[in-house]
């Protein structure tokens, strides 16, 4: 009897210690023995693999760092832990900001703390050069400025956050103007009555509604320049796919997101434009498989044009479509291009961050487009690190500001 009592008392005293050791051991063992994924949609990257040890890496400590990175990436149920962190931070600790993203906007718009970027002194010179080159090759050029979400919702940012984007916008617009006529979409997309529909709440991009509003404004501007971008008179119906978390939503996780975005896409009965690969034009411009991805953290925005490509040509054989356009763009251009391609016969999109092709003058001379559109938001324009043959922006200094944000889908 006394032995049993002793055992019971001992067990009671030990239970907290055993709980701790059990909890830690299960997580550690789970990382080693559990299923290992090689890629994470939440992280948007390949996960770290276990590093092989060597004398050098043991001596300089890089093996240890590698093991820590591996463990950090492979903790069991990692996504759930991250969601719980978001939930605790916002609901229990009442934090309005998570990882420099404002998450407590009443309408659920997530806004990022603006970063200070430098406008290169040579930006205007390079823009002017590009404008001259394009015109010399025989095409008109239109510069389009797309405001970031933080510009459109400037009044909703915390007063403590200085909105550097508003500071640099005039200089960027002036630089663009050196290269030709500029269409500033700021007023259109900042319309308080409509802007909530123009941007995803959990992503930094514009929605199809925003892109279509931008396309209408571009068409009107092009018309004023004597270039006709035909209208698409078909009826577009909105198809809603599964809910998703965009770039900021992935950053703060679902736990800190008020509600995910509905991936609602206006689309015609059939998409008549197709992207070309190796001379065969049969690829969808709107990749429904990506829109249907069951992972709510999957980057669903890449459904537009399949994501960013350095060079992409689309052809539209429908008789209602005519004309050709070269669109030099960042990722905002993907949504726009999906709808623009439905209206023109040939659309060539160039993403300078990935483009490794021929000089722009040769391309224009070869393709004879009706119009060259250069469309950028200022962050992609000033922060780009990979302008090569179109090296009209010197962004080395800004690249430092954006460390950890490698060029990719934008």
């Amino acid at each position: 009897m006394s032995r049993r009592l002793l055992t019971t008392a001992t067990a009671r005293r030990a239970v907290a210690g055993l709980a701790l050791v059990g909890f830690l051991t299960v997580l550690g063992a789970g990382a080693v023995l559990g299923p290992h994924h090689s890629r994470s949609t939440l992280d948007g990257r390949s996960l770290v693999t276990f590093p092989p040890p060597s004398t050098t890496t043991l001596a300089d400590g890089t093996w240890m760092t590698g093991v820590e990175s591996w463990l950090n990436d492979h903790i069991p149920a990692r996504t759930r832990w991250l969601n719980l962190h978001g939930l605790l931070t916002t609901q229990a600790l009442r934090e309005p900001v998570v990882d420099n993203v404002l998450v407590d906007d009443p309408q659920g718009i997530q806004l990022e703390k603006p970063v200070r970027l430098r406008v290169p002194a040579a930006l205007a010179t390079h823009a002017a050069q590009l404008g001259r080159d394009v015109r010399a090759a025989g095409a008109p050029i239109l510069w389009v400025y797309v405001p970031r979400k933080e510009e459109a919702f400037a009044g909703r940012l915390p007063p403590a956050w200085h909105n550097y984007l508003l500071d640099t916008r005039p200089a960027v617009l002036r630089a663009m103007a050196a290269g030709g006529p500029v269409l500033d979409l700021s007023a259109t997309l900042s319309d308080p009555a409509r802007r909530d529909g123009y941007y995803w709440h959990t992503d930094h991009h514009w929605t199809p509604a925003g892109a279509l509003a931008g396309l209408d404004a571009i068409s009107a501007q092009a018309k004023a320049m004597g270039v006709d971008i035909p209208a698409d008179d078909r009826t577009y119906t909105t198809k809603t796919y599964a809910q998703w978390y965009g770039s900021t939503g992935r950053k703060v996780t679902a736990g800190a997101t008020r509600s995910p975005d509905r991936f609602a896409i206006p689309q015609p009965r059939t998409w008549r434009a197709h992207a070309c690969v190796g001379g065969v034009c049969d690829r969808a411009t709107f990749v429904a498989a990506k829109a249907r991805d069951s992972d709510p953290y999957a980057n669903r925005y890449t459904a537009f044009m399949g994501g960013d490509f350095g060079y992409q040509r689309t052809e539209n054989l429908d008789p209602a479509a005519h004309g050709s356009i070269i669109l030099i763009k960042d990722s905002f251009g993907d949504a726009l291009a999906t709808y623009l391609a439905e209206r023109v016969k040939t659309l060539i999109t160039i993403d300078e961050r990935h483009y490794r092709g021929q000089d722009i003058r040769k391309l224009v001379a070869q393709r004879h487009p009706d119009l060259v559109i250069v469309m950028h938001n200022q962050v992609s324009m000033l922060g780009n690190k990979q302008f090569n043959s179109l090296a009209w922006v010197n962004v080395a200094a800004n690249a430092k500001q954006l460390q950890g944000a490698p060029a990719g889908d934008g």
Partner: protein
Amino acid sequence: MVFTSAIFLFAFLPAALIAFYLVPPRWRTAPLIVMSAVFYAWGEPVLVVLILATGLFTYWWGRRILTQQADRRRKALLVVGIVVTLIPIAIFKYLNFVLVQLHLQSLADQTHLPLPIGVSFYTFMAISYLIDIYRRRDIGAPSLRAFSGFLTMFPHLVAGPIVRWNHIGPQLVAPRFDPGLFGYGALRVASGVAKKVVLADSLSVVVDGLFVTGDPTSVAAAWTATALYSLQIYLDFSAYSDIAIGLAAMLGVRFHENFNYPYISRSAREFWQRWHISLSSWFRDYLYIPLGGSRVRPALVWRNLIVVWALTGLWHGAAWTFVLWGLYFGVVIGLERSLYGDALARAPRPLQHLYGLLVAVLGWVLFRSTTLHQAGSYYWSMTGLRPDLPRWDPQVGLALDRTWVIAVIGIVLAAGAARPFMDRAERALTRTPAPAPPPAPSATPRSPTGSPTGSAAAREATGTTLTLEPTAERTEPAADQPISTLFAVVIALLVGVLLVVSTAFIVATTYSPFIYFRF
């Protein structure tokens, strides 16, 4: 390796505990040394040699002092031992600072050395070991293994507390598995980790943002930054001590408490009886008392205070801001002793608390500032007399918006709200009294086991007013108090909840997604 990293919690700690308890009690220092070496080498694969060499030298030199009978020779050996022990910290921590002061900037740039983790802690432990042997208060470690186990044991390696051989050594002879102590240790570890990763680290993001410009943006910003930093550093440092004490308990070893709710102090002197107790008691026992303590004429008391507190400041870092921070406390404590201590004692208690808190909080400005100019700017801003500075700015609003819940929790904890529960858990689980803080050594004869014995009366006789007395309000745990099933379950659940919450925050610190964000 950091206590709050995934690699420590989910890999190293379970492995270390298993390795420790797999071997018989009297051999447990062997896996402890091996695991501690791994722990240290994980972050500093080369500099682990330094701590091992310090251990080797200190043990060997201690034997030499012990076997030497002539007092003068013993003293010479002690001086040499201390000097040699101080060489690593002098080179790695202070050389660069000295060179800069000597206007040898180019040389300083060339000799920029990494600071070995925990060097300030293990150097002081080694010195106290040698001094205790010299004073014939201790016969030292019976073996190199025993001493190395004491000096390198991983719970105290990163951030203390500064433990002493005569307290820890006997416990390491044959540490047994004590389920209650193990459970209590788990509770301390879990609460410490939560305090660090959930509260302190969350505060640090905001505090760093406020201090980043080096110049406050408003009067309110200066006060807010200072107040939040005061909370952050307490939560952070005391959390590390909680974890260290808990880890040691899980290994069957009891450390002294290192923090005792310092922000409820009613004077600067009391603050240092409650803050980083192992450091203040070290300076008391090995510097202040040998200098004469406070039982000398007033001028010498002032000298002693200035020397001790300047060195206390310098111990925290090689910068004038730290030295001034130490001197600030030396002067305030001196003034409390000589000028207004009696008046303060007669003041209403809330005023005394306010005074104690204000002294501590104002001191953190110096501690947090990177330059004297920055500290001056903060102090000047806090007065509200700067004509160019607004009273309030939006940064303050956002900072308070982001931290008010954490601040409330932190203040409640700093005020000791969790103490009744923790004390009850300690009594119920451990069945042994909490170890009293180290007494003054000059009144403490060596016991046969090496454990110190001492009394408040003995300390009074030496005039050791610098540091702590055993706190009156600390309750003595009742012996062999039974623990109910409900309370055991509550403690286990609390440990579980704290670990779940902490894990979420630990995983989040490792999350750095590539989200195509900037473009």
